[in-house]
């Protein structure tokens, strides 16, 4: 499965948190084919510096409007350049890339930091007969914009913060057992910092709910050609995060 190289037109690019932005891009081929958990690889400048594309998960897509939505945190030069784009500008986007989440009828979504983006994507694109709840983990009340993003989705939102200033104090894993026991989740999907995902996968395993995790790895190409993103899989297998992932069954990559 290959992506499309689209010269997308920026439709919206707004700052929503201290270092987090949301961007809508008119990229109709991706909007039509994207699945939850896939990502696109953006070329932030028509220059040799920065040279490589930046992988960003779809936070949403709209087949009718032909747009994709990206939620990105400014961490370096590439994401900084993205903040300068204004509606009407062109952004070279390559996607959809990677393997999506395999959704099920009742999902517990667990997102931390920008790992919330793909959780939002699932929540916004529930199929007939699917329902979900989401646990959002972030630092403190200054980041409640993450929760606001879920207002238009039908999922119930639970919050944990590092300092307890909003929601439950602690990590998402703190409230997972209670939620899992009170519901009949058929899968757990998670994206965020690796230690968080490992914790989530561990709890899910203990409580016998199948878990899918979305990995982050330095990428060269994003298209399976360079082996820059390789990781070990269970039983001596070798995976490419960009092509075999980023979404994997937890037990395939955490062992």
């Amino acid at each position, binding site marked *: *499965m*290959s*992506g499309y*190289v689209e010269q997308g037109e920026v439709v919206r690019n707004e700052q929503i948190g201290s270092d987090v932005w949301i961007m809508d891009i008119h990229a109709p081929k991706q909007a039509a084919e994207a699945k939850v958990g896939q990502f696109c690889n953006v*070329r932030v400048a028509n220059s*040799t*510096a*920065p*040279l*490589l*594309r930046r992988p960003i998960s779809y936070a949403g897509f709209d087949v009718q409007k032909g747009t994709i939505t990206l939620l990105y945190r400014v961490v370096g030069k590439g994401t900084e350049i993205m903040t300068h784009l204004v509606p009407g500008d062109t952004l070279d986007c*390559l996607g959809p890339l990677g393997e999506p989440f395999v959704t099920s009828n009742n999902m517990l979504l667990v997102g931390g930091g920008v790992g919330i983006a793909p959780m939002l994507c699932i929540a916004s694109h529930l199929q007939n007969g699917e329902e979900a709840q989401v646990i959002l983990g972030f630092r403190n009340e200054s980041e409640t914009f993450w929760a606001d993003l879920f207002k238009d989705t039908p999922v119930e939102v639970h919050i944990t913060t590092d300092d307890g200033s909003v929601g439950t104090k602690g990590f998402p894993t703190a409230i997972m057992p209670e939620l899992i026991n009170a519901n009949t989740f058929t899968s757990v999907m998670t994206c965020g910092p690796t230690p968080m995902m490992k914790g989530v996968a561990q709890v899910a395993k203990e409580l016998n709910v199948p878990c899918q995790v979305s990995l982050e790895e*330095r*990428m*060269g*190409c994003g*298209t*399976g*050609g*360079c*082996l*820059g*993103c*390789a990781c*070990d899989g269970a039983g001596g297998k*070798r995976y490419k995060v960009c*092509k075999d992932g980023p979404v994997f069954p937890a037990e395939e990559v955490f062992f």
Partner: protein
Amino acid sequence: MSERDLNNTVTPNPKLAVDYCGIKMKNPIIAASGTFGNGPEYAGYLDLSNEVGAISVKGLTPKGRHGNPGTRIAETPSGVLNCIGLENPGAEHFVTDILPELKKYDVPLLANMSAGTIDEFAWMAETLSVDGIAGLEVNVSCPNVECEGMAFGIDPKVVEQVTKSVRKVTDKPVIVKLSPNVTDIVEIAKAVEAGGGDGVSLINTILGMAIDIHRRKPVLGNIYGGLSGPAVKPVALRMVHQVYKGVNIPIMGLGGIMTGTDAIEFMMAGAQAVQVGVATMVDPTAISRIAREMGDYVEQYNLNNITDIVGAVHQG
């Protein structure tokens, strides 16, 4: 997704066709080893049978390898550092399990091969001299386990031995891929010629590193990595220019080619064909775009064939 299979939909430009050591390519652009998978990864982006001159497959070694742990890719100004560490399933697995699948594309394949000893190089050449392989690309940038892990490619005597040992066991064209991490690239190219090599490809990556000042650690898991991409183009071009003057075997030029202009620079410096690596990482359709741009140049200057310009910069 059959509607995305681009194969056999494009008519190649006959003025771009080149013959490199008997390998007939529909255009002078070879997908560089390690940046194009083994080819099929890109079948949805370009027509492998008609838009790609040849494919150098991911570097093979006698035994399969997992490559290096840790971060393997780092971006540098106009460049990329990589320390993949030759991850591959091994030559035999390639021949039995991967090659058959590749044969459905009408594109010459170069078997890019590395080994730890001279004997292993010969074994690799034998193992890979099979139907479906158009030529051997011998990567001598790998460590010589018999010689304190120094790269084979930095010593002309060793390069000559490797070339000879491969030459002896194969009828396929032998192209030796040179390491740029040397004082005198011409001396190494001459060693290939002396050893009976049919051609040289250059350059492989330049040894480099990057540091994370907050972690106080090298960025790459392997500490050092190989630099490629546009940053190295001036160095690669100079080496091709030097080697063209020093040997009579044909050159494949590479290092930082992103555009048709870049590719033409290499051919004018003396390359008979070019390879494209990092450009594909940035744009999976790069090879077809570069071929089109080369075609435009052929039109603009009304050339009979792109090879008319080979070595042009050396004239007058």
